[in-house]
């Protein structure tokens, strides 16, 4: 293991080098991701600042939509799919705003950026954390959809599509929230910026859930799953690259 910078021109950081020698690059990244995730979870469990409004909003969206469209639709499962993804889609920016909009976030980020953690670990840790928050919200929304709109629970592909949707939204959301967090007047702007970018997820997710609930076979809905994977892969890869640029600007 060498202690010299990996790429020519890179700034030599002795702390990084010692950590790399002790853990190896992959283990060091995994450890960094876990530390960021664990720290964020501890703060969230203590304050419930993001998950409570997200869960409440997710539930309210399902409740209000069910009330509005109660008058009998021709395809109730299509309605259920739209309401479920609508709840996730609207609750997502609330979590991002609560988590990354406050002054505590700047202090938290300054602390993280001055620590010897690898930079990709910051993005990946925050991505997993936001994804987990969204998954918790989706559990509330899914139960509400099952109760109010009589949608069947417990289908594996529904759960997989929700996991993929939450992680895709989180991958784009973390980048956009980092972009808007430096703004003085960022109230509401995060939603305006992140929602159009993640609208493809909403369209794909709604079509996928509708197809699954209508009993379609794997061959007829597999392209939606591939599109979800493609979107997630592109946004995650782009997010890893973009976050590096954004953190540099933050410093």
């Amino acid at each position: 293991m060498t202690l010299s910078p990996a790429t020519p021109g890179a700034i030599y950081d002795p702390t990084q080098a010692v950590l790399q020698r002790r853990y190896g690059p992959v283990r060091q990244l995994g450890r960094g991701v876990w530390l960021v995730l664990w720290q964020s979870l501890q703060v969230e469990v203590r304050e419930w600042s993001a998950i409570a409004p997200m869960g409440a909003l997710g539930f309210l969206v399902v409740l209000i939509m069910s009330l509005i469209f109660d008058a009998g639709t021709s395809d109730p499962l299509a309605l259920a799919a739209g309401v479920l993804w609508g709840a996730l889609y609207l609750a997502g920016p609330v979590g991002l705003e609560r988590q990354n909009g406050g002054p505590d976030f700047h202090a938290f980020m300054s602390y993280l950026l001055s620590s010897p953690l690898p930079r990709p670990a910051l993005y990946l840790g925050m991505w997993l954390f936001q994804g987990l928050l969204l998954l918790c919200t989706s559990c509330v929304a899914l139960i509400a959809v099952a109760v109010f709109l009589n949608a069947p629970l417990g289908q594996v592909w529904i759960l997989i599509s929700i996991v993929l949707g939450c992680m895709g939204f989180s991958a784009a959301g973390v980048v956009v929230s980092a972009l808007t967090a430096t703004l003085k007047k960022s109230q509401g702007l995060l939603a305006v910026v992140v929602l159009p970018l993640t609208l493809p997820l909403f369209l794909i997710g709604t079509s996928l859930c509708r197809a699954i609930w209508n009993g379609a076979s794997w061959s007829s809905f597999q392209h939606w799953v591939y599109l979800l994977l493609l979107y997630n892969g592109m946004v995650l890869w782009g997010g890893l690259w973009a976050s590096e640029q954004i953190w540099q600007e933050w410093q």
Partner: protein
Amino acid sequence: MSIFTWPRVHGWATCTLVAGMALSLWVGLVHAAPAVNLIGAEQTAQRIFYVHMGANSMALVGFLTSFGASVLYLIQRKLAWDRLAAAGVEVGLIGGLGTLISGSIWAKPAWGVYWTWDPRLTTAAILVLVYIAYLQLRNGFENPRTQALFGAIYALFAYVTIPLTYYSAIWFRSIHPIMFLASNPDAEGEFVAALGPSMRLALQSSMGVFLLLGVTLIALRWRMLNFDVRVRTLWLRLH
């Protein structure tokens, strides 16, 4: 005095555009043969097609400029590229909104409604919303370097919606026709093969003029943004 000074280029471009736009409108609205497979109001409304495709090509040139300029900014970190990217988005948005509005006007006689949630229409609306969000984001920053960097990063993400819009009509077949993919069995017209000579001329002239309009507007807006920076610098020096 060189003939390539800005005021002269501006004057020539304006004259060419006014003459070209008048000619292309005449070709599209008068000279081009009516569509033989349509009748009545639908046949008349079909002529919006030439404006619709023209506005679309203007949007494309604007968003492509924004993408290219954003990549160049990230490589070279020169603020002039950022201003070009912003100019491209503004002009692209005019083209994008023109495409949506002309499409809606055409849709009423053709499909019976102004708007339907067809995949192509939906993705085109997303495209416009994404680039409106780009302008909103840019306006929020005070530091020009941060504005340029974060704008360039967002522009790269936003560009993903362009291939998505193009391929949406091919991947998810619905009511919107496919125009430029003759190898696809659902394609309703490859513009060289399926259109008659006068319709082809109308389409090509309209796309050409709108493309020139887009390039000219981008250049003018870019110059205006550069002047804006110079004026601000002078103002700061004075005060």
